[in-house]
């Protein structure tokens, strides 16, 4: 699936961001994902208030040296992956 830009991604039931020993971790049923840099910046914004478009714009500003189109493609791919892993709902 490709996330629609006006939708608001939110961590799915049973998934939450945690911090332990200065490492941010996305905790999920039976799994955990260590997050750094852009992946953390994306997941932090998956709180049901930011639209996909806002996340893309924020990240394009944060990573202004990167090609904006590439940033968007990468974010959409990452959100789709998290959705397929059942870590994300789009509201």
């Amino acid at each position, binding site marked *: *699936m490709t996330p629609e830009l006006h939708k608001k991604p939110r961590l*799915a*039931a*049973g*998934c*939450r961001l*945690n911090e*332990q*020993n200065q490492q941010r*971790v996305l*905790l*999920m*049923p*039976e799994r*955990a994902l260590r997050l750094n840099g852009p992946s953390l910046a994306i997941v932090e914004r998956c709180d049901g208030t930011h639209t996909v478009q806002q996340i893309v714009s924020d990240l394009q500003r944060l990573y202004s040296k990167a090609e904006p189109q590439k940033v968007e493609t990468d974010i959409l791919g990452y959100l789709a992956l998290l*959705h*397929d*892993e*059942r870590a994300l709902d789009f509201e």
Partner: protein
Amino acid sequence: MSAGTPTPLALVAELTHRCPLHCVYCSNPLEMARRDGELSTETWKRVFREAAAMGVLQADLTGGEPLARTDLTEIIRGARVAGLYASLITSGMPLDEHRLEEIVGAGLDHLQLSFQGTHEDSSIEFGGARPGTYEQKLRVARWVKKHRIGFTLNFVIHRKNLDQLEAMIALTEEIGPGRVEFAHVQYYGWAFSNRDRLLPSRAQLDRSLEILKRAQGRLQGQIRVEYVVPDYYAKYPKPCMGGWGRKVILVTPNGDALPCHAARVIPGLSFENVQNHPLREIWEESEAFRKYRGDDWMIEPCKSCDRRAIDFGGCRCQAHLLAGRAEVADPVCSLSPERPVVDSILAAINDPGAAASDSQVLQGRPEWVYRPNPS
């Protein structure tokens, strides 16, 4: 962690061995812990704090039936306060709506509900359950769906209920959890005693994998479908527990710390208790955790095998159960000199006459070996 010792990711907390069910494939040991030896609430809270300090992320609260402990709410709160992700693995039997609200309020992150099949008869035959069990599980599923917590359905599948697989998938879709596990029985504990009745035929297994792969594709993005295959049919062994003393630490109801559910079957291993030693010390220093950690203990064909960092030689308990020696390659491995043991078990199961003798067994011999309740 001291150099070279891996960081455990999950603490499996066996809170009790008491259980309202008597499943014929229960992974609890044949010698179960008694109620009067169970750890106190305060000790579990300390174990959670020690686990979190070591880098453990998740607490899997299991049993027996964890709800048999009246202090479960406090235990869940203790896991969350320590900073752990709290999962409850339950039959759903001793649960009502009020108690569910209470444990969710205490911070439960995820609930895994077990099913023996898609009708009452399966709960009774495979779970030794009393009538009404299946209905209760359906009620629990409806209650859980009212809360925003992680929800997994778990179906243990085997020779005698694989014909229900499509109905299990349909039930899963009806309930709509985030995740479902179809776990082919693994042959330890009570399942080892009932193995010849539980082990599926090759044809059954192949068909089940086709159905599961289709469901996985169709439900992608809605329900995460995971499955475990019976390793007797595998070419290579499973990386049991992600490697001995590498990712998981299990604490039994009376506080013994084990590398896995079944480790007690291995003769000569002794286990330290969390009441006498800090968890970190047990993980790093104890003989039981060091014995098969890494690859120094390996003999051929594991010692020089390219796969030794992938599957860690498979399962030590299975090596002991099938070959009588815990340090040999897991006999399910096609490279193991002991593989003929597994092949002969499979040959008997897949013999065209096996179906007939199966029904003779059902008529002529005492039936399942049910897991009893500890005193």
